[in-house]
């Protein structure tokens, strides 16, 4: 790239950087339109709800330590289970994905901000009211019908809690749609002129796939919830068999969103992993286009597999066959990704810091979750373990082992950029070790429980399952403890951490070409794309025969 030395002689710069205001801490509590502030707002809000949802899970695991309902009442257990699921999905994982997207997309593509900054702020400010509304239901009888809210159970198990749940999900869903509109427009329209679609970071590809699913799926869930609301309040019977309705129609509409929602929750973190692994392995990503297009393939296939959640709902045989086949086909694009990541690590100069440890943890746990997913796609096996702890084990391996590990990898990777401070690596590694042990101890035994026939979603169980349940409960306590090194690390680093340079990881994507934390409106001058996003280790000799990659990286890093 011949333009690499251009910006230093660029007169545009003067008078421009002096316009930038300083960022004040109060900005984080206002209706700010800066995508970086919004990204942090999303992330901190999501983490707040993560701790709330985690606390609910600890209460549940404490209850499940013994077969009898001696710690909480069964009704309260139902509420805990419903709220835990809803909070973790709609207030933790999905907003956390949006947090990374908001923070990173404009920086990665060299833009000043998102395409619609005000809409972006509106989208964020729907999340706290939605979350508070949901939590407020505890005062008036929280919903008890699970995060799926299947009728007729949801129609008969407490009107007010259920209606609050519906309103809260409608609010959070709207927020998610507005966010997705912003992501797609920004990625398509705001890239710097040099960056074509095949030289943009893979995180942007994964957010394109995610946003497509949000735009196409969420409205259908809204339609289902509006009809459910009518059943609940106005006395119609769309889904109530007693009045001539059909609960299966709800299941179809619900899963038309909620299966893609699984990909909405994992795809952003596929993107995060695709960024983290090459940087810390010092190797180009293996199969850029394969990873990029497999995200789109997952997105498309994700729209036509929903009825695999309904194999036991009286779904006719031919339809089961169709959905079994499409579900198994999803293993292909997912496998392409997993193999590409393994090939990226293979032979790399691994820097085993907290970010990469969580990245590798992601790979190994997500692999188990993915493989048990293929098992569940098989109709006969699915019918056997339907609604057992096997399912609970499976989706926690995907959602915790996948999404949450990927999320932590991203937090450790971009923390220096977001805060301008380095994290403490010792605490970070301790966090990883405790999380990895706690996670496996909690969720691996659940597969066994499920195969032995323990039903999920109930507070009391057969005494023969107690030993394994005890192991799960101990594991969940380790998980709870694992968050302390993390919290201490983050709080300590924000205030007392070592100052981070511009580019502590010698990374090539554009967000590392500006200050840490980035200035308001991101770049002093439009950044220059002088290398692809993942060209690590291949051009150690030179670019254009005069400057080595290391020298150029040092230049970019030295200005901080």
């Amino acid at each position, binding site marked *: 790239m011949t333009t690499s030395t251009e910006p230093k002689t660029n007169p545009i710069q003067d008078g421009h950087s002096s316009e930038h205001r300083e960022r004040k801490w109060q900005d984080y509590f206002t209706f700010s339109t800066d995508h970086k502030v919004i990204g942090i707002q999303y992330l901190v809000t999501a983490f707040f709800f993560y701790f709330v949802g985690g606390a609910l899970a600890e209460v549940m695991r404490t209850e499940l330590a013994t077969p009898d309902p001696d710690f909480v009442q069964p009704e309260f257990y139902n509420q805990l289970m419903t709220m835990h699921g809803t909070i973790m999905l709609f207030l933790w994982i999905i907003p956390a994905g949006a947090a990374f997207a908001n923070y990173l997309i404009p920086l990665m593509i060299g833009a000043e901000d998102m*395409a619609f900054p005000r809409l972006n702020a509106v989208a964020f400010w729907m999340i706290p009211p939605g979350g508070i509304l949901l939590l407020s239901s505890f005062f008036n009888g929280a919903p008890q019908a699970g995060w799926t809210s299947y009728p007729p159970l949801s129609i008969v198990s407490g009107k007010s809690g259920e209606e609050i749940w519906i309103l809260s999900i409608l609010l959070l869903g709207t927020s998610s749609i507005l966010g997705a*509109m912003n992501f797609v427009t920004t990625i398509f329209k705001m890239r710097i002129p040099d960056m074509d679609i095949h030289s943009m970071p893979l995180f942007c590809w994964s957010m394109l796939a995610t946003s497509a699913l949000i735009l196409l*799926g969420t*409205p259908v869930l809204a339609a289902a919830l*509006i009809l459910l609301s009518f059943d609940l309040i106005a006395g119609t019977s769309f889904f109530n068999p007693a009045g001539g309705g059909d609960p299966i129609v709800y299941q179809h509409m619900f899963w*038309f969103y909620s299966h893609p929602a699984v990909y909405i929750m994992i795809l952003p973190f596929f993107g995060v992993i695709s960024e983290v692994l090459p940087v810390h392995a010092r190797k180009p990503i293996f199969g850029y286009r394969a990873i990029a297009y497999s995200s789109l393939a997952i997105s498309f296939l994700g729209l036509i597999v929903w009825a695999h959640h309904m194999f036991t709902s009286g779904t006719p045989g031919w339809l089961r066959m169709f959905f079994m086949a499409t579900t198994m086909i999803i293993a292909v694009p997912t496998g392409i990704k997993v193999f590409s990541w393994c090939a990226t690590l293979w032979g790399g100069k691994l820097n085993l810091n907290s970010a990469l440890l969580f990245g590798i943890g992601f790979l190994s746990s997500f692999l188990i979750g993915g493989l048990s997913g293929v098992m569940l796609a098989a109709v006969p096996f699915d019918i056997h373990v339907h609604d057992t702890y096997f399912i609970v084990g499976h989706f926690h391996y995907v959602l915790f082992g996948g999404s949450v590990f990927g999320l932590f990898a991203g937090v450790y990777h971009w923390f220096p950029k977001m805060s301008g401070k380095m994290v403490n690596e010792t605490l970070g590694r301790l966090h990883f070790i405790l999380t990895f042990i706690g996670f496996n101890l909690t969720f691996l035994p659940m597969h066994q429980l499920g195969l032995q026939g323990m039903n999920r979603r109930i507070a009391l169980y057969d005494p023969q399952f107690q030993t394994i349940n005890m192991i799960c409960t101990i594991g969940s306590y380790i998980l709870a403890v694992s968050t302390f090194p993390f919290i201490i690390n983050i709080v300590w680093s924000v205030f007392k951490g070592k100052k981070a340079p511009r580019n502590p990881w010698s990374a090539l994507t554009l967000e590392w070409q500006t200050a840490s934390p980035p200035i308001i409106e991101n770049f002093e001058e439009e950044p220059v794309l002088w290398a692809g996003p993942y060209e690590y280790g291949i051009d150690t000799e030179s670019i254009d025969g005069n400057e080595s990659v290391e020298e150029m990286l040092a230049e970019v890093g030295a200005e901080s």
Partner: protein
Amino acid sequence: MQSSTLDESKVALNYHQAIETAHHGHPDHRMFGVFLFLISDSMTFLGFFAAFLIYRSIMPAWPPEGTPELELLVPIINTAILVSSSFVMHKGQAALKKDDVSGLQFWFGLTALMGIAFLLGQGYEYFHAEFGLTTNLFTSCFFAVTGFHGLHVTVGVLLILSVLWRSRQEGKYSSTSHFGVEAAEIYWHFVDVIWLVLFVLVYLIN
């Protein structure tokens, strides 16, 4: 060698121009956003229509026995009003393209009146229906689907009225700056198309 320096200066020139446009003429992507929103919104209707069609295919009789016949006269008049209003509205936008703001106001005002007429017609239909929301599954679907569409018409009318309100301001809309006008029009056409599908599904194929 010479040619390569030439290329370099060309690239540098392009680079400066690119920076100029990025900093001064902030490009307007709002129309793209409106299209994304409408794709998303259409999925809501798709959800309702899919539910309607599933009920239609799995119920032994559709509409269920004892459902009073739907009166067709008012909805047919309504369909005519709504479809023609799309053309009326387009004339308003065409007038603006010639910088004729009063033309825009006339045609958009007419469109708003036609929208209101549609809503009044729907209100008349609701109050004179021989069935209620909870009579049976079909009537519930009828009110849910037409009601949700009516909500969209209401929003459309409000959008048109807000365009009219803002057009009183000198130079607010012109042949070169008319995002609000275009967005309102696209939305109105969208609502119109949805109505045609709805009309066929709910009124015609029983």
